[in-house]
């Protein structure tokens, strides 16, 4: 194992553990953790078995395996961010509805109190 492989394995294990800690603290839902857990796992696999990646990247026409690795990583991060934005939009819509319905209810309630 080269030094680079060792460093990358350690970083991947550390990241994986970090995600597990937040999962255990319940500050991350399992649903949202899966994408993030897969990322360091993939990195660990690549660190231990770098040859298939190197071959595949050469076959695709990349000058260096690291370039291929970066492209994949950026792609995955883009997707995660994009789906995060989608979920923010959904949540915004839900919050809007909540604020509206609650405010209408509060007004009704205040009116009823006055009548009594």
């Amino acid at each position: 194992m080269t030094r680079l492989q060792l460093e990358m394995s350690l970083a991947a294990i550390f990241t994986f553990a970090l995600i597990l800690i937040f999962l255990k603290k319940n500050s991350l839902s399992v649903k949202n953790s899966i994408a993030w857990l897969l990322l360091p796992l993939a990195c660990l696999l690549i660190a231990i078995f770098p040859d298939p990646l190197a071959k595949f990247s050469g076959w695709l026409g990349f000058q260096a395996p690291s370039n291929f690795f970066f492209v994949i990583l950026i792609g995955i991060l883009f997707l995660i961010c994009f789906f995060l934005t989608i979920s923010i939009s959904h949540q915004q819509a839900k919050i809007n509805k909540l604020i509206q319905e609650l405010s209408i209810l509060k007004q009704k309630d205040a009116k009823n109190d006055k009548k009594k």
Partner: protein
Amino acid sequence: MKPKVLLIIPAFNEEKSLISTLSVVSNSGYDYVVINDGSTDSTEEILNNGNYNHISLISNLGIGGAVQTGYKYAYENSYDIAIQFDADGQHDISFVPDLIKPIVNQKANLAIGSCFIDKKFSGKRSSIVRSFGIKFLSGIIFLLSHKHIYDPTSGFRAADRKIIELFAEDYPQEYPEPVSNYELLRSKHFKIKEVPVKMNRRTGGKSSIHSWKSAYAAINVVISILILSLGRKKYD
């Protein structure tokens, strides 16, 4: 039978103009509901002291969310016609009968108060940027739908029961007027009519569209309209 009419008055930090607008509105005899969109000035105090019918949003929603709350209120309280009416004194209550007329006569589902139809009413209302923006939007809407709306941004609109129900369920959150006007224009089931009205200069407060934000507004509205014209007909 006389239709039940509700004025929806969204208010965000309107302390300067609210009292004068509301005294005119309550003297007119129309039912109204003020939606206080999380104002940080004395708007809430004015509403409570004057015992004006209002809903206070527990958090700021922006113009779309505030007006939609009014439509929900109109729907729940079974109003036949809901009219959006600005708190800043821009809209003239004496034009409400004109606005309601096409709906009562079943000539339209939505009536838009427009200050561009009748030449004697146009003029002092808007800045150059804004009137250019309105022309631009109107042009895009015409290109896409081959129908004219001279003032797609007008916030003085009357909606019938069908549209109240629709808007209570689904209403654009940002720049709602041009977007929802275009949506309705595309649908076969709704008729839109523009009615000439006179607009006053606002007596206080600021428009929700500031000049430095108008580029963003234009981009936002154009994207919304283009997306809508990509096949998906929401209201069919």
